[in-house]
């Protein structure tokens, strides 16, 4: 493909929002309170809407006649390019909110950078999405503080969630030749360039939430390059893609 790096970049953006959007949608009808249920469903829908734009553009760039739906529902695990943190199961409510917060803080910075992209389509999609990400971040940050600095039980659950999630943070800021090419062309910011701002804002919120930030810098990776996903993505896709697998080509 003439522009494989651009295609890969768009898959990474769209698969992140698709996989997280699906995970968050799994809370629909199950959240601890009605108001949180609706808020989570809204977040999921925002992310799926962003997916439509990223994968729609990815399909155009690929030029093989595929659509956003084809990319979402007809690819298998090894073709997905989302980071590993997002495909892991939801855990409890605290884990879900903390994962959302760690991603939102990154997502807002990334989209802010992408809004300045030399690729006008990317700049347009990012400018629209960053407003949603900003709200998601406000909401998740506030809930992280409320739960972290809440009761002893909620604090304990949030600390456990943070310890579990931390090894998945590093992948957001890793770079390969695709990222280097995109950064050189001014299409996307270098992932590592987002780290300092992310650290500052995330540490401030986690400190306010009275949570202990893990020291370990070990980072799982392989999701955004497609080298290796966790077993959880396969299970998620059997559910998400069930209709197309059972009734190929079904539409309504």
């Amino acid at each position, binding site marked *: 493909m003439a522009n494989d790096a651009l295609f890969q970049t768009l898959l990474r953006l769209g698969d992140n929002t698709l996989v997280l959007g699906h995970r968050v949608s799994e809370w629909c009808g199950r959240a601890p*309170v*009605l*108001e949180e249920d*609706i*808020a989570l469903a*809204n977040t999921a829908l925002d992310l799926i809407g962003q997916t439509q734009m990223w994968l729609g553009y990815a399909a155009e760039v690929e030029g093989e006649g595929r659509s956003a739906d084809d990319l979402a529902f007809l690819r298998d695990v090894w073709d997905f390019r989302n980071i590993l943190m997002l495909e892991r199961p939801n855990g409890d409510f605290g884990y879900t909110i903390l994962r959302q917060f760690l991603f939102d803080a990154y997502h807002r910075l990334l989209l802010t950078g992408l809004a300045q992209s030399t690729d006008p389509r990317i700049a347009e999609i990012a400018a629209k999405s960053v407003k949603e990400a900003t*709200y998601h971040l*406000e*909401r998740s940050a*506030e*809930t992280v503080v*409320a739960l972290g600095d*809440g*009761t002893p039980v909620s604090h304990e659950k949030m600390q456990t969630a943070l310890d579990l999630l931390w090894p998945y943070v590093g992948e957001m800021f890793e770079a390969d030749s695709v990222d280097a090419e995109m950064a050189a062309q001014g299409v996307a910011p270098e992932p590592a360039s987002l780290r300092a701002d992310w650290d500052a804002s995330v540490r401030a919120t986690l400190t306010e939430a009275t949570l202990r930030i893990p020291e370990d810098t070990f980072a799982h990776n392989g999701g955004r390059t497609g080298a290796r996903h966790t077993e959880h993505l396969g299970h998620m896709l059997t559910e998400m893609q069930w209709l197309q697998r059972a009734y190929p080509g079904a539409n309504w």
Partner: protein
Amino acid sequence: MTQPKRTGEWPLFEVFIRGQHGLSHRHVGSLHAPDAEMAIKNARDVYTRRNEGVSIWVVEAEAIHASAPGDKEALYDPANDKVYRHPTFFDVPDEVGHM
């Protein structure tokens, strides 16, 4: 900001939304939230999903003072038989058109 209540049920908030600039806030419903800030966020997610508003007010339901249903007769009936309070006794010139 009111102090969050960490125990028991979250307080009930009444939600008022202004649909567009120039209109007044209207009561649209109620919801539970741990504090006023979260109540505004919840109101945003519950009541403005279809572009309904440009401004949100939330008020803790217990802060609202209401008239008693039992006082209905004394409060409202006396206005019922005073038709002269309605501006229906003026001849409006045709040139004015629809008012």
